[in-house]
């Protein structure tokens, strides 16, 4: 009796939970309403089957519970009943499968007017490439990847020159235009997954996979990686912004092509020196940093990192949080470097300055820090030299108080608070493994020993 009642509660409770649950699909933002429909059909057929089987069992357990003098019926089989059940089940299965396959056919069959978009996965970032005016994506090869050619494109291939490179994880898409997404990976499996679009597909190294969708709702959506890709899997985020056509065109025109990056001016040290005067006030004449003015050391930092941070200030990814006092001081300074040439010049000048390790100012337990550094080592490397592959800056020999300060900022959400700042958000997730100020001091103390 009790058993039957509890089982009844389980069955009805499941139904009730489903009705009251606040957890359901996010609002759809693509053309794949048909996927939702297929889910809906499957859900109802399966749900009804579950409830019927459950209730039948509960009833049988209650009705035929052990009683004195009761004897079970002897009925080895019942052909008619078994055939009926088989047929009903088959009908139910066909009822789910048929619409499912029809929608899958749509999913597989990309419309002719779809524009191409290449999504490139790597540990643990997304980047994107658009075919440019010729509508063709140039050949790519993982073996050609360098710090200056992160997409591994072939400069000899004429079709690649007009390819638009979006070497950061924020992508814009025009609304109501079908997109054929071509997926590529530099290293391991990834999966480009935007829950609101419903569609997803793995990116596999050595081959190109695809799927398509049409964004139908303007807004900002988060890209997640849905295929385990190593210790940073959960930090591999990106952003897709679906724009109206005009906004999209404006964004697109501000992006660099592969040709632009090939034609990037070599920095002029002399011109850079002149521009650096503004920076020298805080960062020091030798770019050695100044703790009193909250300016970190710049020498020894790689060009791609400096370039990225300058861009981040310009785009408002950094220096916009109201509690980020020093970042907000930096933002107007960066504005003095008004174009890419100026940026390259100043970077060239910084690289011409001597690189002496910054003095240690933070004290902590380096041995404990070593254990904590385990979480940093994959991206920032064992020697703290950073890697263009993981987009991680150099740490060893850089200003330690600044690292500690930034870790605090990450933890407090002062840095990496914007959805578009995917690398910042990555550090937010990673920094949360350091529990307490002491842990931060310890890990920085260990970095000082590198």
């Amino acid at each position, binding site marked *: 009796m009790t058993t039957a009642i509890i089982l009844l509660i389980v069955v009805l409770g499941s139904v009730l939970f489903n009705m009251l649950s606040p957890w359901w699909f996010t609002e759809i933002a693509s053309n794949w309403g048909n996927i939702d429909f297929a889910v809906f059909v499957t859900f109802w057929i399966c749900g009804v089957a579950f409830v019927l089987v459950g209730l039948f069992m509960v009833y049988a357990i209650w009705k035929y519970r052990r009683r004195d003098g009761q004897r079970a019926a002897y009925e080895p089989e019942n052909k008619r009943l078994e055939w009926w059940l088989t047929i009903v089940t088959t009908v139910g299965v066909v009822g789910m499968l048929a619409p*499912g396959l029809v929608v899958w056919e749509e999913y597989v069959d990309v419309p002719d007017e779809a524009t191409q978009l290449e999504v490139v996965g790597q540990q643990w970032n997304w980047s994107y490439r658009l075919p440019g005016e010729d509508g063709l994506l140039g050949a790519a090869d993982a073996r050609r990847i360098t710090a200056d050619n992160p997409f591994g494109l072939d400069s000899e291939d004429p079709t690649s020159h007009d390819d638009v490179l979006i070497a950061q994880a924020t992508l814009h898409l025009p609304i109501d235009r079908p997109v054929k997404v071509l997926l590529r990976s530099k290293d391991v499996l990834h999966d480009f997954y935007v829950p609101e679009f419903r569609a997803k597909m793995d990116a596999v190294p050595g081959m190109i996979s695809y799927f398509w969708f049409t964004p139908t709702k303007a807004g900002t959506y988060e890209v997640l990686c849905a295929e385990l890709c*190593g*210790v940073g899997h959960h930090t591999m985020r990106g952003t897709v912004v679906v724009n109206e056509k005009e906004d999209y065109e404006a964004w697109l025109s501000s992006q660099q092509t592969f040709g632009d990056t090939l034609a990037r001016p070599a920095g002029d040290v002399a011109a850079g020196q002149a521009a650096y005067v503004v920076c020298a006030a805080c960062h020091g004449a030798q770019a050695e940093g100044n703790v009193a003015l909250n300016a970190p050391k710049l020498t020894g930092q790689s060009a791609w990192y400096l370039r990225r941070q300058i861009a981040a200030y310009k785009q408002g990814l950094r220096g916009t949080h109201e509690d980020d006092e020093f970042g907000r001081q930096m933002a107007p300074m960066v504005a003095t470097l008004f174009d890419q040439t100026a940026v390259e010049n100043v970077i060239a000048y910084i690289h011409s300055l001597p690189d002496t390790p910054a003095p240690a100012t933070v004290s902590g337990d380096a041995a404990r820090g070593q254990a904590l550094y385990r979480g940093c080592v994959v991206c920032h490397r064992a020697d703290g030299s950073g890697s263009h592959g993981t987009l991680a800056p150099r740490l060893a020999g850089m200003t330690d108080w600044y690292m500690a300060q930034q870790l605090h900022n990450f933890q407090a959400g002062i840095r990496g608070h914007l959805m578009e700042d995917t690398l910042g958000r990555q550090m937010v997730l990673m920094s949360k493994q350091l529990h307490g100020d002491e842990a931060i001091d310890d890990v920085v103390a260990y970095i000082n020993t590198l």
Partner: protein
Amino acid sequence: MAVEAQVPYQEAIEVHHPHSWVTKYWFSQDHKVIAIQYGITAIGVGLVALVLSALMRLQLGFPDTFDFIDPEAYYQFITMHGMIMVIYLLTALLLGGFGNYLIPLMCGARDMVFPFVNMISYHVYFLSVIVLLASYFVPGGPTGAGWTLYPPQAILEGTPGVDWGILTMLGSLAIFIVAFTMGGLNYVTTILQARTRGMTLMRMPLSVWGIFIATVLGLLAFPALFVSAIMMLLDKTIGTSFFMPAISSMGETLDYSGGSPLLFQHLFWFFGHPEVYIVALPAFGIVSDLISTHARKNIFGYRMMVWAIVAIGVLSFIVWAHHMYVSGMHPWFGFFFATTTLIIAVPTAIKVYNWTLTLWRANIHLTVPMLFAIAFVITFVMGGITGLFLGNVIVDVPLSDTYFVVAHFHMVMGVSPILVIFGAIYHWYPKMTGKMLNDTLGHIHFWVTFLGTYIIYYPMHYLGFVGVPRRYFANGEMAIIDSSVEMLNQTITVAALIVGIFQAVFIWNLIYSYFRGKDSGHNPWKATTLEWQTPETPPRHGNWEDKKLPTVHRWAYDYSVPGEEDDFVPQTVPQKAVQAEPQSAT
């Protein structure tokens, strides 16, 4: 005739009688001792995996709280938990444990056909467990590639245990496969060639059928895992490029070129999908026997049940790529594999109907094994229908790699078989030890386990509907979720910890009842099958009387036969003159 010749030959077999403690309990050739060795080892290593799952749940419920759980450790927990549960616990316990114990007893054989090979099988299995657990003591710890061990990730930097852990894991798997093959050949040969007089295939209990087909699946599926393990070992150690294309890892170009990561996935799932049924089919079989015995009613549609097992076994070899709908393989495969996958639902559904129809007009004894069997049916139906979501290719697209998948496979091949295993242990413990397990402890254990696991996994499906991806160390700020998800995760964690802790009740029951349990007698459940008709309990080495094997006269499900005084008629009882045997056993 050969048939006539064979049985006296079996009857006359001299079993290798043990003389010392070592040969009796450690290097024993008695299938019952080997079964218990398999069982204890599997449960032991399963407890390790249980602890690992509790640690994972702690991180998921309360992120940023525990110093010792970093992403590396977390992914190591995931990998070891999954691999241990699927291979070293479920496969080993259901086939090595129950297969070994039940096959000779239920078929009426003295032992497995090659007891020596059987003994070696256990010790090789034990070795594989040692190598697996050694992962935790090698530099870098165990591999954290996930139990699917997908390359390139499994052998590249950025994954824990990439230096040593992956080698011990692959090595352990290869050793396990050797052990399984030795055991499996024995099980299959014993079932085919060493049954006693009258035990036709269509009179065998469904437990034996389930174990039989599962073992055949294992013998044909494990080769794919073996081959992929060897190839990955070569990729890792000497730099071949089977699974490795040209790769730029951490900014450096590696020496690999031209390999195919998808090849590994195909090989892995060609093993991996039948593996699901290697676990499920014995559970199907055993639960059929439990339900029939405790409902005091014959299993409904025995022949249909047998053919359903066979059909599921055959179909399980042509559905593997339903794990790969979004893997980037050619999308046309989706049509084929979605169709085969949903076809498999039909025989599976028939099994479910027959279990429930067995309860209809029965006389249900709600013993602890029966409770577990009923809980299995509920859980399995839930896990089965969510499988239809994931098998229906387009529905899989939004749900794959989310918590829906985690909830689904834990329901269907985690909790369901475990419930059957518990039921089976409560059911056969009296035969193994001569003592009954304590009923009160059994009830406590049952309700906490059943309701607890349901609370863990049922709501988890909804996390998947929301779109929360699986295998995330922490969700952090995620656009699609709000604080309600965190609350749900905490609830699940608390439930998981409670279920985990209450398994101690079960372990305690096993130990306590061994010394203090009630004597069970030979046939406490009044069951019909042969293992309850042995002359001694626990059965001696050789199982039956000297020089005389039992003779089987009827199928295994003669419960509540009209005209009989008792509500059960053992298989060894001759037919009455005119008594019509059910069609299925003609």
